[in-house]
Structures are given as C-alpha cells and as structure tokens.
C-alpha cells in the first residue's frame, strides 16, 4: 500500500502544464484545439498567447475512500462514477503505465468516440479544466474541427454540434474552425495566411490550402499517431500506451532504428507520411480551382505526431520523391510550437470574430 502511495505522489509531481491561470482569470476570447490525443486551450494575455493542455484520455479505477483521498490530495483530475473513479487528463497516461493498461479515449479518429459510453462526460470534464465559463454571455470561443472524411459526414456533424452545444452552455458564442486553417492562422502570418497547413494529430491528419486566409482545399486522412501506436503495439506485442510513451521519449526518424520498437515506428511513420503526401498530391491534382498565384507556397507541419525529430525531413523526402505537385512548394517547415499551433490559430480566429 505504501509503495502505491509513493507512485501516486510521483504522478502528482509529474503532472505537467498546470492551467490554474486559465481557470482563475477567465473571460476574453478563447481558442480550443479539441484533438483526439490532447485538448489545448489558448487565450490572449497582454500581447502574448497563453496555452494550457490536457491529455484527452481517461482511465477508470475501482473506487475506494483511500484512493479518492489520495487523488484529491494530489490534485489529480477525477470524478466518481458509481463504484469507479474516473481519472482523466494529463495524469491518465502515468496511471496507465503504472497499471500496464491502455488509456481510454473520449475521441477516436478525430471525432467523438461513438463506442465509448463515457466519451461525453469525460470530454466535458476535461474541457472544464481548461475553459472557464464565459465571463460575459456571447464571448467568442473558436474550436477546431477536422475536415470532412468521405462517409463520415453524420459523425462530423454530431461532433461539431455536440461541442458547440457544450461551449454555448458555458456562455460562449462558439465558432468552429477547420484544423488546418487554424495552423495557417497561427503559423503563416508572414505569408499573409497563404500556404498549406498540416496538423498531424492522434486520430487523423488534417490538411488545408488557403490563399490570403481563404481556404480552397481542405481534407483529412483518418490516420494519425494512434494508428502508429496500435500498429507498432501489435507487431511488438506491447500496449499502444507504452508505444506512445516510447515514441514521445525521443524518437529520432533521421537516424537508423536501434531496436525493434524503433524499427516498427520508422516503418509505420513512413507509411503514414506516404499516405499523407499521396492524399495531398491527389487532392491538389483533382482540385477544380486552385488559386492563381505565381508564388511558391510554404507547407507548415504541426501536431503531436509531427513532433519527433526527423519528421520534417521524412515529409520533405517523400514529397520530393514522388510525382510533382500542380503547385510550386517553397519549402516545408515545422510549426514554432507544433502542439499548440492549432489552438493558437483558433484563438486568432476567435479574436477576429470578436
């Protein structure tokens, strides 16, 4: 029992990115990236942008008074649901590793997880930790939504409407913004919001081409970091959660793999990037109207899945390796902060709508 308590203390110490400030100060337009893997909120503080994030995951543990006391004492986000304690947010991953279990997700493939009965209550609980109630009725909040995937329109409509209803219930005027466009807003200001924004998230990769801030091509592929985690987990016989931790603890795609873990990660990363570049090529080639511009466009990469070292180079190599695109590309670069790019872009959209 003592040992277990120790673990809990460690978890508490390791909880990252506290968002107390966001909770206390409230008000002002907000941007929110509701991603499969993470929820990130952004708001303006003076002339800077402040962000806070939570893991969009949860893990239920059996209720006991002792466990509940420990969770409360250590300020770990949880709520009680009958005979279970539902631990949610950033601490979840540590618990999952501790108990060698997979985390559960309120969202899957970029949308609300229809197969998860606790999807909505947990997502709402997570959002509550990041987004305070609007100080004034009608405060603008922009939240990210993925581009439509063929055959998934009803799910997307439900996902967007559910989030909108939740935010409006908190007193906000909710505005949905395409995820790729949000990346363009936050990262391509110097190019007058012209270029290609790509957000590689947990559930999907979203791509938007915009010309002077007006989106002209938007699409997504239903694969992201989770696909890599599950595929690698299956071939190395590990939980996807452990694969994710391994992936985030310094995977370097630019150097040869050192073990079976890395080998599998390399294979599936290459697979994902190939599919992404193929989809980009196909969508650009089939586009009815491409903006007339004699300028080469910048591609900016963002999202947690794009974070490993060497991802940009892998993308660049794959892009140059295939058939040429119908538009000229000036270069590929990473977002200044890949994890918060979408939320920061959503905030710009909210401030614009204000």
């Amino acid at each position: 029992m003592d040992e277990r308590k120790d673990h809990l203390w460690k978890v508490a110490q390791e909880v990252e990115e506290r968002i107390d400030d966001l909770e206390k100060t409230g008000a002002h337009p907000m941007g929110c990236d509701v991603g499969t893997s993470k929820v990130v909120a952004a708001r303006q503080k003076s002339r800077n942008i402040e962000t806070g994030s939570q893991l969009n995951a949860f893990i239920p543990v059996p209720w006991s008074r002792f466990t509940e006391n420990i969770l409360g004492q250590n300020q770990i986000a949880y709520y009680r649901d009958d005979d279970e304690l539902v631990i949610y947010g950033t601490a979840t991953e540590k618990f999952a590793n501790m108990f060698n279990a997979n985390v559960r997700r309120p969202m899957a493939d970029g949308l609300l997880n229809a197969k998860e009965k606790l999807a909505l209550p947990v997502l709402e609980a997570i959002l509550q930790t990041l987004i305070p109630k609007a100080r004034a009725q009608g405060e603008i909040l922009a939240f990210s939504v993925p581009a439509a995937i063929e055959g998934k329109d009803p799910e997307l409509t439900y996902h967007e409407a559910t989030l909108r209803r939740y935010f409006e219930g908190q007193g906000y005027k909710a505005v949905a913004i395409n995820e790729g466009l949000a990346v363009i807003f936050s990262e391509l200001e110097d190019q007058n919001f012209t270029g290609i924004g790509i957000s590689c998230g947990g559930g999907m990769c979203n791509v938007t081409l915009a010309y002077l801030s007006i989106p002209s091509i938007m699409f997504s592929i239903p694969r992201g970091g989770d696909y890599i985690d599950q595929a690698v987990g299956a071939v190395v016989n590990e939980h996807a959660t452990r694969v994710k931790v391994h992936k985030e603890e310094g995977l370097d795609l630019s150097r040869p793999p050192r073990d079976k873990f890395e080998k599998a990660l390399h294979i599936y990363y290459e697979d994902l990037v190939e599919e992404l570049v193929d989809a980009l090529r196909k969508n650009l080639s089939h586009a009815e109207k491409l903006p007339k511009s004699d300028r080469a466009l910048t591609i900016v990469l963002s999202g947690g899945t794009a974070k490993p070292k060497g991802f940009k180079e892998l993308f660049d190599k794959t892009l140059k390796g295939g058939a040429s695109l119908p538009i000229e590309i000036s270069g590929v670069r990473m977002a200044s902060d890949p994890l918060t790019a979408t939320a920061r872009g959503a905030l710009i959209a909210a401030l614009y709508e204000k």
Partner: protein
Amino acid sequence: MEGPRTVAKEHPGEFLEALEEVTRGITDPVAKLRFIRSYLPEYRQVDRVVQKVPFRPARRMLYRWAGLEGLRQLMKRHGLASPADLTVGTRLSVAFGRAVTAVVALIVVGAMTGLSTFAYRYWRSRALPVTVAAEPAPPAPAPAPVLAPLVIPAGVAPAAVWLVEHGEGFEQYSNGLRIDTRHAVPGEPRKFHVFDRATGLVPVIHDRPAGILFHTSESDVWPLEEGFNDNLRLSSVQLLRWVKRHKLYHYLIDRFGRVYRVVEEESKANHAGHSVWAQGDRIHLNLNHSFLGVSFETRWEGGRALPITQAQFAAGRNLSDWLRGRWEIPAEMCVAHGLTSVNPKKHLIGHHLDWARGFPFEAFGLPDQYQLLPPSVELFGFAHDDDFLKVLGEPWAGVREAERALAREAARRGQTVDEVRRERQGLYDRWLTEQSRAETATAARDDPAASRKPGGVRGGA
C-alpha cells in the same frame, strides 16, 4: 469560419506584392487577418479600375494606395487595429496616403469649381436681359449663428487617441494622458442588464461599460500653493488608499492632474449607488456596473465655481476622450453623478449632488446634460425635497422640463401629478426588483458549485 470568396485574378502578382507591402507593416496577426479579409471583397472594384491602367508601376502604386486607404478606413470605422499594431512606416504611409487623397480631392474640387464658374459665366453672357421685374423676394432668414466652441484647442491635436507606450506602472497616450497603473486592482466582473422603455428588462447581459460618471471625491482640499505641498501630497495618498481599499472609482485624478487607475475598467466599481440614466429607450438602473467612475479629488461646494484645478481639467478631458474612444461611449452617456443619484425609498432625486451643477460638459466636448430630462423624474416620477433646494436653490433645467411634462401628462389623463408620479414610481420599484432577481440569477449561473456533473463527483484539478 467563413470568409470572403474574392481572390485576385488578372494580375495576382502585382496585387499580392502591393498587398504584402501594406500587410508587412501590420504586426498583429488578428489585425492583419481583419485587413486582408475586409480588403478582399473590395478588391474586385479596385481591380476593375486598376486593370485599365496600362503601366505596371502605376498599377502597383494604385493597388498600394488602395490598400493603404482601405487600411485607414478600416482603422477609422471599425477599429481594425490599434496604432500599436502597425509599424511606424505603415503609419506614415497611411498618413501619406491620406494626404495624397486630400490633395487629389482638392485638385478635383478645384477643377470642378473652375469648370462650373466658367460654365456659369458663359451661360450668363448668353442669357437674355430680364425685361419685367419680378415680385421682390421675401428677405432670406438670417443664418443661424455658429457658436464658437468654448475651448479652442491650441496646437496640433492627435487624429485619434492611442497608446504611445506603456511600462511598469504607467501608460502614455497620444493626447498627453498618462495613467498611473501601479494601484490598479481587479474587481467584480462587470455584468448588467438594461431596460427597454416599452418592454422592460432586456434579457441580455452586457459587459462593456456603457457610460462615464463624473464624481468629486469630497475629500480634504488644500490650497494649491507650494507651502501646502506636503498636505496636498499626503491627502492624495490617503484618498487613493481609501478609494483602492473600497474599489470606489475606476479612475481618480488628483489635484496635480495625475490620473490613477484604481479599479480595472473591465470590473465594476462602487461609485454610483442607486442611480438612473438613459440613452434613448435604454434605461440603466444602478450604474455601478454599467458606468465607469471618474473622480476628481476635490469638493464640489455647490458648484458655484469650477472646483477643479487646471491640471485636473486637462487630465479629465483627456481621460474622457480616451475612455469614450476605447469603449465607444456616446457623448450623451457621459454624465455627472449628481444628475443620476436617487433615493429609492423616498423616490427622490439628488441623493448625492456632486456635479449637480457646474460640470464643464461643453468644454469636455459633451452635450449639456443639465438640459436633458432626467429619466428619474420623467420616467419614474421622482421628486426633490427641501434639502435638495437648500443646496441647489433651483433644480437644473432638465428637472423643471421633466416636471412640466409630468404635469401635462396628468392633465391629459385627468389625474393629479401625484397620481402620475406614484404610478411611475411603482414602475421603478418593479424594475428594481426585476434587476435584483436577474443579478441573483446571473450570480447563481456563474457559481462554480452549480456546475457539478450529474452522476459523479468532480474533484482534483
């Protein structure tokens, strides 16, 4: 999030280059996005004209000029960007573009006038002489006298009031206003309802200040002489401490004209108490939430003389200009505390009387609020008592006019003035109760305890 659909077609390169030249000077991404999205729909019209110009440099210049002009118009009309969001070069370019526009306009007007004069002379020289005298026309009415403003601003006034710079403990504005921000404290968030004259409580919660209320601190006042310097300083310090502790005003202007921000503008301050004011059909009750409180360190003393120093006068006017610009406060919503303060139990006006006479509205560029019918009397039938008359001698003009309106209404209905007053006072009582309920409901909605999840107990972070 939708946007305009127009994009450049014929010469996208030239257009884009010119656009980039303008946007390069916009440092704030939101301002840049607003500019681009506002400018694109107008591009088609601009493009139609520019396409006819045969020379590339001229086309580029016209695109750029149109962009700068669009930027200037948007800054002016919609507050597209604060000047702090633009580089110095862009600001200069906007000013230059404006000057060019003015010069071109003058040339066009001059040319048109010249043409008209020529045409008129030509027509007259060819016209037949009049042989029959017409009936003498009645003398034209004398033109209405143009009233010179009471205060003629000397020197160059800034085109707008903007934040020049800010540092730890101060903000400096382009009209000379300097705000000491070291004492600023947050307060309760501003939330208020307004009433519609016809329909009553409007169920919309507002959070932007709707007006400015001018006060006097009614504190110790020492002669403005060097020998009293220590007393003057000490009084200000003590007053500031008191005002801060009780969150009384948003701004305090001391006797040397120093402007202190005390309560953050986004919060309410406890400055107005029971009070009433109106903007057309929108009625405001209890102005703590809806109005910004600006207090001059002085005693009103019945308003027989202007009780503020020259420095306070200048600072107050500059502060009023800045606040009005920042929050888009209409002139008729800038009023003195004494004109709004009421006693709700006795249904009397003038519960507080600071600035009930003598506020220099015109010199502040504001309408003479003493001439307006106070809604407390006109709409709610409030009266005044002997104590009020002891101080003021005679109510301000608007009160008398409102009382005459009540008398006319009573005569029209065949009632006594007291009966009309009682009916209207009843309306005030009902609205006051409704406001109180609405505030309670808003507070309950905002209570975090109310956001507990069904079927679970929230805990932790």
